[in-house]
């Protein structure tokens, strides 16, 4: 296939060529950045929490009328007992917060009682001896809390645990050169002994700003005796819906002076996860939808302009056919023409894609796009161009040679 006659012919369609090339370029720039954003969001959403999520239920309970600390202790003990006796419930514990909840508090943890001198930030999870089995955490070293190590912690009481359990990542940061088990760490101004290390436990927040310590969590042996408590309930996975529908009424039957909000007081962990990553999922959907429509629009545009060109050149095609060009020649002509235009488009588009990525990096703290995305986008758009132009080119190749004699 000779390229120079095609180039010569293109000079007569400058506007159309520029329009298609521009469209290809912009589509490439937007689509490969969109794909990159989708990939990043999916990676974020894919991060394991360390929790055995199916069959886990969360109930947020607020005591009404501000009972005293001592009262909360007995109310909470009664609740835990009631919940444990519910059919379908395997285990339960009470806590201040849980992974992906987007609430709770974080502390510095380090080797010194000086609070300003810490090694890492860590999420603080109040736990008891049932926490590991309720959440399904994997203990890789050491032991669980014993029941007699769990203390009540009133509002604004001093947090100074004698023993703590940390995640493997936090243990590594505290003691990079050996096992942290049995060693001390300061999460308050008094030392705590690390008695256990769990494989993984994500912090409550999924924000990018906290990603640097997203796997640094500490379990503290406390029951937080304050107005708001979260009960985490391990159910048989097939009974979770059943337990979820009954749990509110069961708790109210034992004690009326509480608030479990009808709207979101009882949540499965699947709902917790969906809420935590709502905006990530939303972004991925939006980027996906826009990319699909964009590609379809561009394809439609190519079909439209190519059809117009074929229509315009019926006579020339007829002449070429009369002079001995085969159908393949005509088909090849239009396919090559499209390939040339698209190649110009993707070169420009590749540059635009990188420029757009740089701008997004500056504006939205995004990462640098992997070159694979641009290359995949280039291949996809070249293929798209060929597919889109195929139907008009096919019609062109079926223009009969007699067309040449019709007018002029």
């Amino acid at each position, binding site marked *: 296939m000779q390229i120079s006659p095609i180039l010569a012919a293109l000079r007569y369609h400058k*506007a159309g060529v520029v*329009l298609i090339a521009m*469209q290809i370029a*912009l*589509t490439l*720039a*937007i689509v490969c950045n969109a794909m990159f954003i989708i990939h990043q969001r999916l990676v974020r959403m894919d991060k394991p929490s360390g929790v055995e999520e199916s069959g886990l239920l969360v109930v947020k309970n*607020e*005591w*009404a*009328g*501000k009972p005293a600390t001592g009262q909360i202790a007995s109310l909470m003990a009664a609740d835990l007992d009631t919940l444990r006796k519910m059919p379908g419930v395997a285990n339960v514990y009470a806590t201040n917060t849980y992974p992906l909840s987007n609430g709770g*508090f974080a*502390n*510095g*943890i*380090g080797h010194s*009682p*000086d*609070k*300003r001198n*810490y090694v890492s*930030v860590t999420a603080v999870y109040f736990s008891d001896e049932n926490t590991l089995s309720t959440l399904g955490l994997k203990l890789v070293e050491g032991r669980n809390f014993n029941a007699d190590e769990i203390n009540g912690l009133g*509002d*604004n*009481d*001093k*947090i*100074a645990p004698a023993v703590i359990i940390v995640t493997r990542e936090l243990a590594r940061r505290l003691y990079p050169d050996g096992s942290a088990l049995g060693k001390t760490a*300061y*999460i*308050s*101004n008094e030392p705590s002994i690390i008695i256990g290390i769990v494989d993984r436990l994500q912090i409550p927040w999924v924000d990018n700003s906290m990603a*640097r310590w997203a796997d640094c969590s500490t379990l503290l042996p406390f029951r937080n005796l304050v*107005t708001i408590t979260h009960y985490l309930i391990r159910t048989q996975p097939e009974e979770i819906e059943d337990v979820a529908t009954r749990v509110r009424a069961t708790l*109210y039957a034992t004690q*009326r002076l509480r*608030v479990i*909000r009808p709207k979101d007081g009882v949540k499965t962990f699947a709902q917790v996860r969906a809420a935590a990553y*709502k*905006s990530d999922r*939303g*972004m991925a959907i*939006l*980027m996906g939808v*826009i990319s699909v*429509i*964009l590609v379809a*629009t*561009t394809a439609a*545009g190519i079909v*439209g*302009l190519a*059809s*117009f060109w074929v*229509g*315009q050149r019926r006579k020339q095609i007829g002449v070429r056919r009369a002079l001995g060009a085969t159908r393949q020649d005509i088909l090849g002509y239009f396919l090559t023409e499209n390939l040339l235009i698209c190649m110009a488009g993707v070169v420009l588009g590749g540059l635009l894609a990188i420029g757009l990525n740089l701008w997004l990096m500056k504006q*939205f*703290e995004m990462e640098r796009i992997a070159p694979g995305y641009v290359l995949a986008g280039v291949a996809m758009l070249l293929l798209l161009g060929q597919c889109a132009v195929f139907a008009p080119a096919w019609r062109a190749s079926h223009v009969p040679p007699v067309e040449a004699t019709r*007018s002029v």
Partner: protein
Amino acid sequence: MLAYYFRLGVRSLLRNPILTMLMVLTIGIGVASSMTTYAVFRAVSANPLPEKSLQLFAPQIDIWGPQSRAQGADMPDALTYTDAMALLRDKKARRQTAIYPVNLTLVPQDERSEPFAINGYAAYADFFSMFKAPFLYGGAWNMAQDDTHAAVVVISSQLNQQLFQGSDSVGSTIRLDDHDYEIVGVVDGWNPKPRFYDVNNSDGFNDAPDIFLPFTRGIDLQINTNGNTNCYGSAGRNPGFDGFIHSDCAWVSYWAELPDAKAEAAYRDYLTNYAADQNRAGRFHWKPYITLRNLVEWLDYEKVVPPETRISLWLSLGFLLVCLINTIGLMLAKFMRRAGEIGVRRALGASRKEIWTQFLFEAAMVGVGGGVVGVVFTGLGALSVGLVFEPDIARLARVNTGLIGLTLVCALVSTLAAAFYPIWRASRVQPAWQLKSN
């Protein structure tokens, strides 16, 4: 003549219905995606108090020093209780208030109904006049009641509806947690969006707060903050509520009303001097550093417009641009295919201007069609923004007459802009060439 162009346009558009539909759909979808994301963007980037947004200021004081920032802790976007109280005592602004969010419960008298949660804020009397809260009944408490730590409360019209069936409840008593409060006022559905005075704790688009009570009373009753508490480093403060409020944890929002640039400069000096005093007193060991941002700057600093909303808007505009380029191409094809017809018209005496009018008319028809499709898709888009944005934000994107008008105008203007080049080409058609070849 216009009626004739209209008929010509209809005939031409119907001649290639697929091409016409493609153009209309392209414009419609492009405009709709931009309008949907714009509706969300407009809602989240709105100025909640335009008439006073340049007179309301939120201060920050560097209480942890440069070392904390080296360790990755941002400067806290609230004050410590100690600093907030010092600023309130000095009263250097025209009006000022400390604020913190509270979460209480209300136990109904009726044994059968369940207790429910009450959200609100502890604030000072100036809060209501500073932020122009409209009252349905009664009014704010006064400064003397701040000083006496009075057990009074301002409730929302929703709570008033729920508890008193909307009647004037001023003077009645409600029991929140384990204490009684006398109602002094009912605010009239007041919920600025974004809720600028609480964006350091929430996304700013939640349901309206139920109650407001005096800050001094909240502290007396040891009501904890329901918002963020920013502490630095590991725990290490004295136990109890008293230990908490006198710690260097930042959790009190603070706003000052400064009527003009002079007052703003004076307040800035005052804050710097305050920080320097703390330095001399041995509390800080670094160069005094403060910030003072007005409401607009504060919303920006707190990133109230989520990055997702911005990216979506830019992406949709990019998409619209591609749609327009596409439309230029399709129109060019469509108009140039009629070169023969144009040639005949020109030869029969039609001027270039008349060709312009004819094709502008046709383009306008495509634009209006695109606008109608765009309105339909914008409606669908507004219904499905819940898939993409947080529920609090998604429900702000409403289709109103303004948005419908904007969609139509946007579709028409962008179509005419896209049609400019194809029409110019059409008007340049040489009649002689066309007549010769056909």
